[in-house]
């Protein structure tokens, strides 16, 4: 087994990976940018190395610096987390060439699945259905428009080089097609350093449902059931749950088999996720495969009682999978709410600042995978994900009740977060009742925003009276200063500056 693992990431996922490493008796090495000197993953690690200035392109994406740290620290293996270098074929290759174990799939599998166009082409060789669309990245906009018209509008433009909704656009008609392609290309160039995009059919009432898979180096492949990820805004997942309120046992089995087939088709090794779109007629289509740990992996851990990072490490160590497909059972229900530093009431604009108060929910069936603490400064340089609240209970209703309780208990002062937005979603009757599709957010946006700021007279009086007292206090403290002003005019200016600072 490895003695030392370098985690080439930051934030909640770095901490999450390090926790498992330490439980396995493996030392952990952190890398950090200048903006992250006191970040939780640096404080947690056994060793920590500065790898560059704040912008990710100068630090967390600098695989040359990271490899240098790996050599200096005599690391046995590198865990890339998600995002950053996790799906970078060249990085995986360089790590392996440096005689360090890359905790992830072989570079070849990343290459096949990381490029969405190549992935589609590869899947067309299997029995797994794919969504109709272009098979090559768009080079000629005119020609692409013809394909779009063949498939029929609306169509979806997607980045070939990455995920997470970045570089994605729905196009309703031929009129805005060219403009949307240009925008998507620009965005995906900026996000992934790869401006290629392609188009595909936009499905009716689609459900975004994904399957977790595990594959060892000895040809064993299993799946650990699905995660329902249809609650999205700006094509980014907000809430995920398992089991899906939409699947039935037959469909689950079919899709599970398709997920395993997908992994086999690219000789996959490690933990991966096969994403599907399922339309209202319960037809399912291969969407993409994420060749890394997924943000929402704890949902699967909670219903299956596994530790997916431990599985990744054991697989990378060459061990045989400890469980067979028939050992996998799903107990109860789990739901994850992503807590972002964003102002939900203002179109989810990122929010930065110092966390002035923090109360993280806890208790029975309540888990928070985060990387925050009171006093920590949230900077604008990285993904605004603060952490994930995951609640488990014996059935869906109880799990939702638990999540609602936990969200109400959750307090992050000093910055805006999506806590209350998640609560509004969970309280929404359509979500409560389930099933729901990927249009949920767009359809219910107005109600959700209303719910977010709905207040009774009582709440309004509480707010007003607190503001009154707050001002009285400020007035009081400035008065005591201004009384000094009268006698010492020079000194007071310095004091006022202090207050403003």
């Amino acid at each position, binding site marked *: 087994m490895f003695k030392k693992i370098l985690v080439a990431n930051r934030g909640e996922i770095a901490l999450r990976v390090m926790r498992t490493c330490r439980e396995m008796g493996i030392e952990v090495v952190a890398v950090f940018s200048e903006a992250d000197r006191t970040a939780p993953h640096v404080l947690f690690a056994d060793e920590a190395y500065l790898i560059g200035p704040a912008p990710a392109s100068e630090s967390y994406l600098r695989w040359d610096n990271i490899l240098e740290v790996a050599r200096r620290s005599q690391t046995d293996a590198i865990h890339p987390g998600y995002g950053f270098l996790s799906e970078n074929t060249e990085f995986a290759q360089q790590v392996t060439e440096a005689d360090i174990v890359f905790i992830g799939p072989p570079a070849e599998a990343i290459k096949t699945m990381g490029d969405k166009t190549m992935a589609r082409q590869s899947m067309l060789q299997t029995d797994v259905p794919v969504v109709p669309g272009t098979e090559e990245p768009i080079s000629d906009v005119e020609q692409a428009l013809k394909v779009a018209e063949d498939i029929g509008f609306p169509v979806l433009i997607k980045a070939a080089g990455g995920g997470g909704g970045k570089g994605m656009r729905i196009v309703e008609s031929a009129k805005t097609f060219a403009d949307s392609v240009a925008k998507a290309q620009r965005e995906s160039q900026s996000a992934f350093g790869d401006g290629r995009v392609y188009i595909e059919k936009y499905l009716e009432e689609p459900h975004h449902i994904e399957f977790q898979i595990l594959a060892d180096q000895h040809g064993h492949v299993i799946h650990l059931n699905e995660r329902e990820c249809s609650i999205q805004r700006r094509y980014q997942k907000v809430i995920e749950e398992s089991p899906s309120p939409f699947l039935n046992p037959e469909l689950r089995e079919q899709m599970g088999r398709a997920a395993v087939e997908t992994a086999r088709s690219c000789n996959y090794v490690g933990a991966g996720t096969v994403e599907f779109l399922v339309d209202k007629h319960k037809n399912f289509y291969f969407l993409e495969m994420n060749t890394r740990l997924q943000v929402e992996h704890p949902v699967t851990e909670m219903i299956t009682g596994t530790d997916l990072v431990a599985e990744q490490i054991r697989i990378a160590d060459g061990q045989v999978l400890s469980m067979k497909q028939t050992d996998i059972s799903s107990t109860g229900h789990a739901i994850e709410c992503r807590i972002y530093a964003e102002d939900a009431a203002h179109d989810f604009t990122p929010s*930065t600042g110092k966390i002035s108060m923090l109360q993280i929910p806890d208790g029975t069936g309540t888990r928070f995978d985060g990387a925050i603490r009171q006093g920590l400064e949230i900077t604008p340089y990285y993904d605004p994900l603060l952490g994930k609240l995951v609640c488990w209970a014996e059935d869906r209703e109880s799990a939702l009740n638990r999540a609602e309780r936990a969200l*109400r208990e959750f307090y992050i002062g000093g910055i*805006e977060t999506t806590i*209350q937005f998640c609560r509004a979603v969970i309280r929404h009757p359509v979500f409560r009742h389930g099933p729901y599709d990927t249009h949920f957010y767009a359809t219910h946006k107005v109600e959700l925003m209303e719910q977010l700021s709905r207040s009774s007279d009582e709440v309004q009086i509480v707010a007003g*009276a607190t503001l009154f007292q707050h*001002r009285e206090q400020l007035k009081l403290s400035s008065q005591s200063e201004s009384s000094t002003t009268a006698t010492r005019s020079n000194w007071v200016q310095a004091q006022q500056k202090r207050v403003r600072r």
Partner: protein
Amino acid sequence: MKYEINGGDKALQVDFQQLGDKLIIRSESGEMGFEAVRIQPGIYSVIMNQRSFVVGIRSEVALKVSVNGTPLVIELLDAVHIHLRELGWAAMEEVKAGLVSSQIPGLVTKIFHLVGDKVAEGEPLFLMEAMKMENEIKAPVSGVIKKISIKEGETVEKGTNIIEIG
């Protein structure tokens, strides 16, 4: 002292009276005992009529408050202001409707116009990248661009003035 609390479309008339540590509030709903204890700068534990709340003053300038996490925009008018309003006086602050300043810190990647260009309300003005997302900022009003204070590729702090439309 009489006050009016304006939140969204509702306006409540209240009367605050300091009584030692407590505030006595009279409103249409009757008399209420109110007590607030500061637990962190700008964060209070409130007990009003035995009900427990956590209230955060999120921005003193914009009058943003949150009660048990619920965000509210609250305007607190005192008797003088209420009276002035009754006399037909408008708010004293001049609102520069055409001034676009950044709501977030980030990198301005593209500016679509030059000084002197005519723009229509809702037309894109510039692109800004923050936390790996590209944000398109639109014109809040129609008019002519009078001033551009930033160049493409510049990083701006929150609150920086970027474009003025006249």
